[in-house]
């Protein structure tokens, strides 16, 4: 597979890859390029995660009649960089009776699963590292590995609050995984493919999928946003780390960079959920009404990022407005309302496609 064709179609990347191929044998060059792409992605998303934290703090400030970070750098732009530096330089403390191996493993589970999902993201037609034909499935599968890290963290910390938080996380993620999966399945019915780039291309002619599938699509979108918020353990479903009930939940005993991994993973997961929603419902990199289709130099990434940020703002809006659900209400919502509704929605979508009622 030629990886160079899949990254940014700028001349500079072409030049770099040509240069690498010219100085070493083909196999070595191919692996070198893989490593370079991986490092570039890691760096990109570490920074993206940091700036999502800053965005969250700014959005929270706007909701709460405050100004937010504004001291470090212009408009507080370096604030989270400074925070990350502080966390890196902190001592990693832990209690005595922990399960050392699992305790140290847990944060990596969470962060690695979050970062792996990035591999299949279709930022633009050319800017996609790994365009596999089961892209959607891969995203769901990878993003649900993270819960193992949370369970490990809670179990190995030897802390009752952490344990309660982890158990809550387990039941929450397993329950809402169903809704996420089923609402994605509803949309896959409409497109007939799991490949992310093809799903987006299907929206070039018929309009965004949320319009193509009208009522069932809109229901699927709403269920997806609810379940997606629950998947990322964010308010109003932040029972995992409900600070007024459990202190800090599963990451009570973590400090320094290990805590930062959990923290960053939450924001990257939010990015993942929003990206899936953008691909499945809002046409991915396609511009609204095709307004920039004919402008060759216009970066398609722009539309993708704008749409993702819009949905991220929606999720932040949830967080700073709603109170938290109780644990039994959380399960009632999923098993008694969302799941039956979702199953009916799939049938509805099937009927819509069968009768060719799509727009």
């Amino acid at each position, binding site marked *: 597979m030629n990886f160079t064709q899949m990254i940014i179609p700028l001349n500079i990347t072409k030049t770099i890859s040509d240069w690498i191929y010219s100085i070493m044998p083909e196999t070595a060059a191919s692996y070198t390029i893989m490593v370079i792409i991986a490092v570039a992605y890691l760096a990109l998303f570490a920074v993206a995660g940091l700036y999502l934290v800053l965005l969250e703090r700014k959005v*929270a400030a706007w*909701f*709460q*009649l*405050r100004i937010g970070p504004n001291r470090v750098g212009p408009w507080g732009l370096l604030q989270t960089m400074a925070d990350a530096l502080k966390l890196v330089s902190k001592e990693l403390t832990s209690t005595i009776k922990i399960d050392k191996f699992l305790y140290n493993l847990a944060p990596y589970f969470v962060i690695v699963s979050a970062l792996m999902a990035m591999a299949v993201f279709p930022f633009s037609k050319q800017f996609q590292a790994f365009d596999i034909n089961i892209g959607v499935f891969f995203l769901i599968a990878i993003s649900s590995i993270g819960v193992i890290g949370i369970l490990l963290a809670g179990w190995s910390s030897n802390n*009752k*609050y952490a344990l*309660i938080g982890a158990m*809550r996380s387990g039941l929450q993620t397993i329950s809402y995984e169903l809704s996420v999966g089923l609402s994605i399945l509803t949309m896959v019915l409409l497109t007939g493919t799991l490949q992310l780039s093809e799903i987006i291309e299907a929206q070039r002619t018929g309009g965004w999928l949320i319009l193509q599938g009208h009522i069932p699509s809109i229901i699927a979108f709403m269920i997806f946003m609810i379940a997606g918020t629950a998947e990322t353990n964010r*308010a*109003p479903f*932040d*029972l995992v780390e*409900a*600070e*007024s*009930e*459990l*202190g800090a939940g599963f990451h009570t005993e973590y400090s320094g960079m290990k805590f930062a991994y959990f923290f960053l993973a939450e924001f990257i997961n939010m990015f993942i959920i929003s990206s899936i929603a953008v691909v499945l419902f809002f046409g991915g990199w396609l511009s609204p009404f095709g307004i920039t289709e004919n402008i060759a130099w216009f970066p398609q990434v722009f539309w993708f990022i704008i749409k993702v940020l819009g949905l991220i703002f929606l999720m932040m809006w949830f967080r*700073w*407005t*709603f*109170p*938290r*659900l*109780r*644990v*039994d*209400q959380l399960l009632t919502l999923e098993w008694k309302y969302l799941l039956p509704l979702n199953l009916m929605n799939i049938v509805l979508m099937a009927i819509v496609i069968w009768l060719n009622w799509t727009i």
Partner: protein
Amino acid sequence: MTDQQAQNKIKTEEYFINMGPQHPAAHGVLRLILTIDGEIIKNVEPDLGYIHRSIEKMCERDSYQQIVHLTDRMDYLSSHINNEAVCLTVEKGLEIEVSDRVKVIRTIIDELTRIASHCLWWGVMGMDLGALTTYFYAFRDREMINDIFEETCGARLTMNYNVPGGLMFDIHPNFVKRTKDFITHFKTKIPEYDRLLTGNVIFQKRTKGVGILTKEDAISFGVSGPTARGSGFSSDVRKHHPYSAYDRVNFKEILFTEGDTFARYQVRMMELWESVSIIEQLIDNIPEGETKAATKAVIKLPKGEFYQRVETARGELGVYINSTGNKNPYRVKFRSPGFSNLSVLNHISKDVLIGDLVATMASFDFVIPDIDR
């Protein structure tokens, strides 16, 4: 396998967990020893003493003017009302009649204190249930009250504005205007509070039918204040035993009969309107007069027992002074609302989830230094 067999096979064990003394939901250093089965609470045992400063014992050492200053530190959110309780008791003992001006100013500041306290409670209640934004809305309005206090008596929280016989000095010339401005502002903000939190479906689900306290239990456990009124127990001291200027204003005693967390919430929200109405009735006609009746430099209460009750933002505060005729009391006892209200917590928090306990505690509006003294 039937359920019974399954239960016999799987052995479960209850475990205990310390909620506090350092815990975000405890609002202070209250330690609750919870016995939990999974996430279901089997027993709640409050453990006090982490902020015990022996205020009652210190009162025996101090003169009557000094006692007033100690009471700030009990229920710091109703410091003016606590001060007033002591002053009223001493005035009762000395048989001083304070001027109408003092009475009216005390009442206005009482109600401002109540609004400030309920504002803080509202913000914290939202925060306990996971809605963090409420806190900042509430503090925006509470700051305005604190600014009014600061201008008039120099302190924002621990007021010390009352002295036996009246007030330390007259109100600031801006007091009336700023209070009126605040009332106009605040009347537009209470509906905003309701839009943000009260009408929220999740909030109502979290609070309705949670932590039900019956009227009988409320009476037998000595619960008072908005907590008791949420259970339909008419216990407002301002109504039943009026002090200061409460006998000359019209206000309703808010009563709800459901007794759940949402009822207690509604009582406090409606009390905000009542406090606003009380201030509106008084602010325009503060009578002229002395701000301090003449007292001796060294106050000596006659031999005997004196008791005065007032309604703080949390409930009934009683001040009992036993005097032997000296310049300091022989024994002082404060009947604090928080202590009695806390005693009912275990009774109503059996077999509920942790989230319910947090919601119930938030609706009780505990101030831990008031419980511990």
